[in-house]
């Protein structure tokens, strides 16, 4: 087993152990934090497919994350108010079943990623960064100005959605759901990166012209990866809404996009467990620096600048002793 695999296993075990210990020592807050790590790690794992494997520097993944969250919130609020979403052409009711909410969140964020990706991928480089950012901002402003689901104030979900056979209100159960989804997503990323499609995606990242010359459309490959990436972020968003029992436009804000990106880079791009490690580190920093000073964001910012300037390859890169870079 190489060093990165060992580190990955350690991260997976650590993330599993934390809430169990939290439970044993009656520190429910630890369980919440671990759940947050799993969910944000899932969003980061999604972004890693676009950003790491596909080389698409998307600064707009908050759009997909937030849309997933709003799907969960909207479906639940309709179910709880006994108001159907639509009556015509056919009756569509809200739901609090995770097994229905998730696919809807995935489809909605996937469609959004398809549209945004198809437009943004007409360009590359800095343009791509700015455009993904701008489109996410558009969704953000829409959420703010559309009053039906709370507008600027957001939308509270009074009860956590349900999963057959589990009590989702039990923090450990909910953590287990998020953790399993994270591991599944990482497993899927692994298979994807090793597959024929992963090969083509790597080709598109390294040299799009080369890929086109062998007759594979870099646009189609990248767009597909972008959509998959957006779908994972959307699923994470639905879970995040359930964790907080609240969705608001801040899930869609550019700041969220930036944070998801920070998780990925902090952990190490194209490292399978990089985003989860990055999210864990970020949340630990948030909570420890937060004790040091109320201006912990200043410290975090300075730390990130230093990391970019002097330590390339992310945390896993440093630990694994190789500083590969995107």
């Amino acid at each position, binding site marked *: 087993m190489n060093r990165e695999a060992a580190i990955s296993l350690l991260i997976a075990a650590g993330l599993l152990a934390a809430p169990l210990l939290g439970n044993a020592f009656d520190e429910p807050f630890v369980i919440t934090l671990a759940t947050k790590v799993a969910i944000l790690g899932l969003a980061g794992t999604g972004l890693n497919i676009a950003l790491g494997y596909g080389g698409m520097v998307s600064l707009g993944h908050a759009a997909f994350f937030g849309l997933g969250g709003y799907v969960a919130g909207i479906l639940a609020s309709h179910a709880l108010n006994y108001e159907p979403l639509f009556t015509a052409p056919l009756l569509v009711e809200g739901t609090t079943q995770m097994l229905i909410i998730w696919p809807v969140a995935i489809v909605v964020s996937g469609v959004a990623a398809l549209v945004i990706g198809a437009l943004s991928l007409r360009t590359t480089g800095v343009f791509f960064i700015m455009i993904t950012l701008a489109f996410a901002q558009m969704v953000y402003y829409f959420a703010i100005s559309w009053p039906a689901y709370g507008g600027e104030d957001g939308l509270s979900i009074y009860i956590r959605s349900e999963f057959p056979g589990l009590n989702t209100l039990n923090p450990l159960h909910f953590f287990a759901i998020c953790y399993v989804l994270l591991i599944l997503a990482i497993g899927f990323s692994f298979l994807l990166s090793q597959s024929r499609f992963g090969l083509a995606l790597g080709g598109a990242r390294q*040299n799009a012209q080369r890929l086109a010359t*062998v007759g594979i459309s870099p646009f189609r490959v990248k767009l597909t990866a972008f959509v998959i990436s957006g779908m994972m972020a959307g699923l994470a968003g639905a879970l995040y809404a359930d964790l907080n029992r609240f969705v608001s436009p801040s899930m869609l804000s550019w700041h969220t996009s930036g944070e998801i990106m920070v998780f990925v880079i902090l952990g190490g791009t194209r490292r399978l467990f990089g985003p989860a490690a990055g999210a864990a580190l970020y949340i630990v920093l948030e909570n420890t620096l937060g004790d040091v000073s109320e201006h912990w964001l200043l410290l975090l910012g300075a730390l990130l600048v230093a990391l970019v300037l002097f330590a390339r390859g992310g945390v896993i890169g440093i630990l694994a002793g190789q500083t590969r870079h995107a």
Partner: protein
Amino acid sequence: MPEPILQTEKLSKRFGAVVASDAVTLDLVAGEIHALIGPNGAGKSTVIKQVAGEIRQDSGSIRFAGRDIGRLDMVARARLGLARTFQVSSIAPEFSALQNVMLAVQSVERKTFRFLKPARSDTSLKEQAMSHLVRLLLDDRAEIRAGDLSHGEKRALEIAIALALRPKAFLLDEPMAGMGPENTAKLIEILDGLRTEAPILLVEHDMDAVFALADRISVIVYGRIIASGTPEQIRANEEVRRAYLGDEGHDGAA
């Protein structure tokens, strides 16, 4: 003469004031190597780029394998069977040489959108890719990162990738550029055997290679084809001698 597989008709392209292609009419028939020669900046690469679809001609048409391809993009033309190499090597540098060829193989199989099965354990994919590396004498470099290959090996890798496309025609832009004499000799031998698989439009500065390989030669100067014919005809052509080869013989090429 048989029906040409590739035919350009009055292809023209300007870059600002520069006329890079001036009504270029060229064809390529089965079994031949057709060399396109001319001084630096004459417009050879521009012809290749237009045929491959990297840039769009201002006017004129391109027919390939019985259809008009002048408006198709690079991907579509590659899929129709045009395999092209670049004057400056263009490879996926982080992939191994083998992976670079595997990309071409999976493209030809039309099996790119497979998400779950590891490509590494796909023996047929690997074996096919390997066979092309073998032909270019690169088999012992298969696992080397393509970006770490020597200059000559990168040139050869590009040809292996082109081979893997099982094309109907090759477009090779200065494949020998920057190669030592030993590698050039090897490559001449390889290209010589290739023409029976698919005809080659060969842009090349190395006149020894050109006269050793070409069935036909076209000479381009300032974007215009000034002569076209067998190597003997070209050697004897007064205009060509004046404009390009130089009076002292065919070594005077730039």
